[in-house]
């Protein structure tokens, strides 16, 4: 079997780009048989080189406006919804990947879509209400400890609007005195999180997602299961 080469883009219109690339680099150590390229994406040409994409945290209004002006919105929609390539959005990226959003600016904002959910922007309030919480993310595997979720002016999934059960809820958070909120969802090739794994030193979510990317591209090479490890030096385990 020829060695697998995968190009993963990080949409670099604005926001936390290098943080994702740093963790992707660490997570890639879990897949020694795969050659990864990590690419900052600012143009349709760069997007066309990508097998998978991360849409980082930032300001979703700014990203939508800049993406529109650079002629990237339609290519992004095609990438996510027609070509069905693996995509992960964190925070503002989750907003961009939702089919609907509430609490948007006057006149609304453009979205890429792909997740049949409605997100609520800035659910918890202003920056003073931003917080860190331990999350139980079962998809990371049995026996894994909690994940430190960093929520910054974070959106949540207010409602799953797909009636066919294609949207899987993968994580929730409950602040004291508040209802439980959905903060991680997946629908086929599209994954979204309200929180910022890229602001932690914890590589597990990046490693899990890269495992999905490797599998989606049809040549796992590491056996049937997804390989998850805790970064360089860890053997990783199959589940």
């Amino acid at each position, binding site marked *: 079997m020829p060695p697998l080469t995968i190009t993963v883009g990080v949409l*670099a*219109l*604005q*926001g*936390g*780009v*290098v*943080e994702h*690339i*740093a*963790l992707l*680099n660490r997570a890639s150590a879990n897949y020694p048989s795969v050659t990864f390229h990590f690419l900052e994406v*600012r143009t349709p040409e760069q997007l066309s080189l990508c097998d998978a994409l991360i849409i980082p*945290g*930032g*300001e979703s*209004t*700014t990203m939508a*406006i*800049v993406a529109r*002006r*650079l002629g990237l919105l339609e290519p992004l929609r095609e990438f996510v919804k027609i070509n069905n390539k693996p995509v992960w959005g964190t*925070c*503002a990226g989750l907003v961009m990947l939702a089919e609907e959003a509430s*609490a*948007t*600016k*006057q*006149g609304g904002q453009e979205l890429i879509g792909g997740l049949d959910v409605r997100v609520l*922007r*800035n659910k918890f*309030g*202003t*920056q*003073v209400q*931003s*917080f*860190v919480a331990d999350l139980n993310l079962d998809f990371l595997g049995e026996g894994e400890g909690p994940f*430190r979720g*960093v*929520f*910054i*002016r974070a959106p949540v999934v207010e409602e799953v609007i797909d009636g066919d059960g294609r949207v899987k809820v993968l994580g929730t958070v409950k602040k004291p005195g508040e209802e439980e909120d959905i903060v991680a969802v997946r629908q086929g090739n599209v994954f979204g999180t309200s929180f*910022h794994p*890229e*602001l*932690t*030193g914890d590589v597990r979510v990046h490693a899990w997602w890269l495992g999905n990317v490797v599998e989606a591209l049809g040549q796992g090479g590491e056996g049937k299961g997804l390989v998850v490890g805790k970064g360089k030096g860890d053997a990783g385990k199959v589940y």
Partner: protein
Amino acid sequence: MATNLTNGISSISDDFTVKAGLAQMLKGGVIMDVTNVEQARIAEEAGAVAVMALERIPSDIRKVGGVARMSNPEMIKEIQAAVTIPVMAKARIGHIVECQILEALGIDYVDESEVLTPADDQYHVQKTDFKVPFVCGCRNLGEALRRIKEGAAFIRTKGEAGTGDVVEAVKHIRTVNAEIAKAKAALASEGELGIAKLAREIGADPILLKQTAELGRLPVVNFAAGGVATPADAALMMQLGCDGVFVGSGIFKDALDAEHATKRARAIVKAVANWTDKKALIEASIEHGTAMKGISNAGLKEDEKLAGRGW
């Protein structure tokens, strides 16, 4: 350039991760000074990542003179209600109560700013005492690290606000860059002792200085501010290593009308998003049109300069 700021630095607290994290999410963006709801809406529609609510833009603060203070909370609340992007506001250097008021208003970032008249000639605000994060100006690495030691989670150059003359902002980022290079060299050649010696010279905390030397950059996000007036100015500051740009008077000063201000705002956003793309910079410069007239920094008397406030 795989600078990773806080990611991977496990020693910092959750509190600081959240404060510095918002600044990380603003990278590659433009933060615009606005004085009313109309200007805030123009900024948001143009693609600003945040707005800075203040009574007067810096060029008018210069012109009007007198004591410049925190803005009226009523105006700040109106702006908060009008936009969904983060709203920042300025407090006077050392004015703990202005900071408390801004925190209680739910401001997303407080700028402890030399553009306002300082309230304390001895101390900056102890920013670790607050839940709201702070951005502060600097002219050099020592000043940047003193502010971070006090709890600032975001740094900007001081430049010379309200002039439309970028020369001081360039001087400040070049000074910071040169001193970071010096810290790296000191760490490489003389280790901890070299860092300790340099830390004494520049008046910085040695632990933060060592961290800076190891990262090869400031340990928090660093924006340009103070005199950025055109798309080319903004791209210049990005090429010199800034993570984003504050534009004060440059959007609304001497703008012909709201449409012209909108074009200027959009043009600067475009320049910061495409700071190496010469074609985009030509388009942005055309769209921007005439810039604010400005005041040459060289023509300012020492007591007219704002950057010397704070230490």
